[in-house]
């Protein structure tokens, strides 16, 4: 074991001394992601967030619902929200198609419930495919609910007066009472410093559950989705480069020299596989960190991502262990390695959105590490444990390792 770690640490030292190839492979996915992001992400004014698409369903059509709608119509809010008033059926349909970030549903009798100081509920339906924008809508409506509740409770007596006025026939509207009522309200506004509780308006948050709801991407969302695909593609390139030592050391005589020392073939094979795994994982984590720094890409819980990265890197090291046991020389490794990686990336979804891929591609894609890593990364991004991806990558990685070890031992034994 001591010699295994000696070889491993020597490999790490060597690659750190001449890291150009690895740095290039790490930079390419960042550059490609950046370029694709610039080309395909939605345009905004000078880097500002685009207006958030909000659907508003008004079952009440009363004074309070108009007040809620009016709040979205203030100039400052217009920059932030683009509100479309619709009916609930149409709203849900649009949400399922991912056409909006959130839908706010004002219930029937909302105004009357407020005037009678009865609890009522505003519903916010969120688009789960988006990360931040639905939360912004929810927070905004929540604040609105708190403010409205406070106002209604603080001005209970005045509200009753307003209700009486509202219920009076138009030609008998008591205009002479309006001035004193407003005067009293003004005094109360000065005195009211805190919210009253309990809140009269409650907030209910929902998410659309329709499968395949498409998102209206923000640039950040696009980066978060693209980067795992790019990262796994270049993980394959990097690990292949690292593990090409198996071939080159055989050709330039270092392997023969190693075999004249007490180093055993199994120790050398172990060092090569472990080295590919550990260095691949390290590079993947560095790429993820750069992705977060440069593109604000979200990866989800670190522990889950670490496990997924470790599984993908393990699979990759085992695969290229087998690969380098089969190819005869550096030229063959170069000639076959790149096309295999590009095929994995094409069918596995590193180069295009899997939802836009032909069915045949998807069927082939399940045999690639790219597909499982990308699927796993999507789950991790949503905070979910990528059990299926981990299981597939680890089990198939173990099978590949079982094939690679004896094959490499044969190539190493001289």
């Amino acid at each position, binding site marked *: 074991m001591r010699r295994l770690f*000696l070889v491993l640490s*020597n490999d790490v030292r060597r690659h750190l*001394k001449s890291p150009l190839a690895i740095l290039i492979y790490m930079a390419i996915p960042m550059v490609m992601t950046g370029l694709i992001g610039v080309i395909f992400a939605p345009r905004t004014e000078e880097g500002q967030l685009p207006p958030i698409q909000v659907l508003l369903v008004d079952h009440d059509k009363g004074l309070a619902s108009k007040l809620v709608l009016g709040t979205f119509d203030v100039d400052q809010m217009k920059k932030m929200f683009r509100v479309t008033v619709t009916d609930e059926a149409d709203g849900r349909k649009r949400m399922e198609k991912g056409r909006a970030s959130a839908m706010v549903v004002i219930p029937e009798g909302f105004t009357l419930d407020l005037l009678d100081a009865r609890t009522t509920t505003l519903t916010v339906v969120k688009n789960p495919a988006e990360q931040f924008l639905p939360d912004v809508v929810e927070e905004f409506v929540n604040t609105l609910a708190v403010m409205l509740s406070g106002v209604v409770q603080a001005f209970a007596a005045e509200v009753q007066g307003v209700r009486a006025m509202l219920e009076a026939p138009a030609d008998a509207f008591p205009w002479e009472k309006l001035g004193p009522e407003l005067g009293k309200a003004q005094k109360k506004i000065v005195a009211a410093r805190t919210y009253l509780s309990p809140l009269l308006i409650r907030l209910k948050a929902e998410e659309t559950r329709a499968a395949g709801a498409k998102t209206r991407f923000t640039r950040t969302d696009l980066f978060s989705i693209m980067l795992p695909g790019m990262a796994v593609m270049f993980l394959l390139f990097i690990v292949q480069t690292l593990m090409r030592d198996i071939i080159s050391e055989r050709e330039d*005589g270092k392997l023969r*020299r190693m*075999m004249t*020392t007490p*180093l055993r073939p199994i120790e050398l094979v172990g060092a090569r596989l472990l080295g590919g795994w550990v260095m691949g994982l390290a590079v993947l984590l560095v790429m993820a960190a750069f992705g977060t720094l440069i593109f604000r890409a979200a990866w989800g819980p670190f522990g889950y991502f670490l496990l997924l990265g470790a599984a993908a890197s393990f699979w990759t090291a085992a695969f290229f262990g087998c690969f380098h046991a089969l190819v005869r020389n550096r030229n063959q490794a170069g000639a076959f390695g790149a096309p295999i990686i590009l095929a994995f990336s094409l069918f596995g979804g590193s180069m295009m959105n899997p939802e836009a891929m032909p069915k045949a591609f998807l069927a082939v894609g399940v045999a690639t590490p790219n597909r499982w890593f990308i699927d796993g990364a999507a789950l991790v991004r949503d905070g979910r444990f990528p059990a299926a991806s981990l299981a597939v990558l680890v089990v198939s990685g173990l099978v590949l390792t079982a094939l690679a070890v004896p094959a490499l031992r044969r190539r190493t034994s001289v």
Partner: protein
Amino acid sequence: MLEIKNLTKSFGDILALDRFSLELGKGEVLGLLGPNGAGKTTLISILAGTLGDFSGGVTFLGRDLFADRSLKNRMGVVPQDMAFYDELSAMDNLMFWGGLYDVPRPELKRRAAELLELVELAGRAKEPVKNFSGGMKRRLNTAIGLLHRPDLLLLDEPTVGIDVQAKVSILDIIRGVGASGTAVIFTTHQLAEVETTCSRIAIMDRGRILAQGSLDELVRIVGERDVVEIVGEFAAAPFSEALQGLAGDRVELLSAADGLASLAVADTEEIPRIMDRLFRHKLAVTDMKIKSPSLETVFLKLTGRNLRD
């Protein structure tokens, strides 16, 4: 210390080692001399443990070399390839390769520094090896084989492709290693190298040792006779026929090829007789050289060809 018995190795139909046997004692420096394809590298590779599928046996320090893996720690190998990492420094390379031989780290550091002095690389110990000249790389290649103070050092053509100064330096190191008690086997094409470096010389061809001994012992094989090298426009067969009847104690045909032949003569007075025969058989001679007995003439006599054929 080392006893090789009937080592035989084939590559398909080609017999690389043919019941090869040899004994080597402590501190002995054996030069293995032979043309390309003689089996020198095959022998070194089998002893180093990098070539399998052979018959015969080797005993090293009283134990079976191929059964006792711990003996690898007692043997140093300097391969023909520059087998080290170009991107690392000389010191890093020595620390890595020494680590594989289980040399404890503090001792390894001392030993690496000592060897860098010996091979005159101490001033460039921390520089990446890729910046070194061919000679410096050869010296580092040699130093790696000495890190663990082996009892047996195998060197496969350690002076190939380097300048005279670097060659002299490496040969000095080999002599020094032998003087310190390490047994050495080194292969080469260069007669001068073995003449000046080795305590024993073995001439090898087609997988077998043709003769072995000290330089003086080997020269005696040819005797006190001079060697006449004749260059001309003739084929090998007519040349041999022309000299029939002359052969005997006083004239011996050592080798004959198209356009080049060598003869050992007891006396230079035999040369006119030889020339007369050749002219009578209408064989044109364009040049002739007379050489004193040397390892080269021994090699010629034993193998029937020049070392570089």
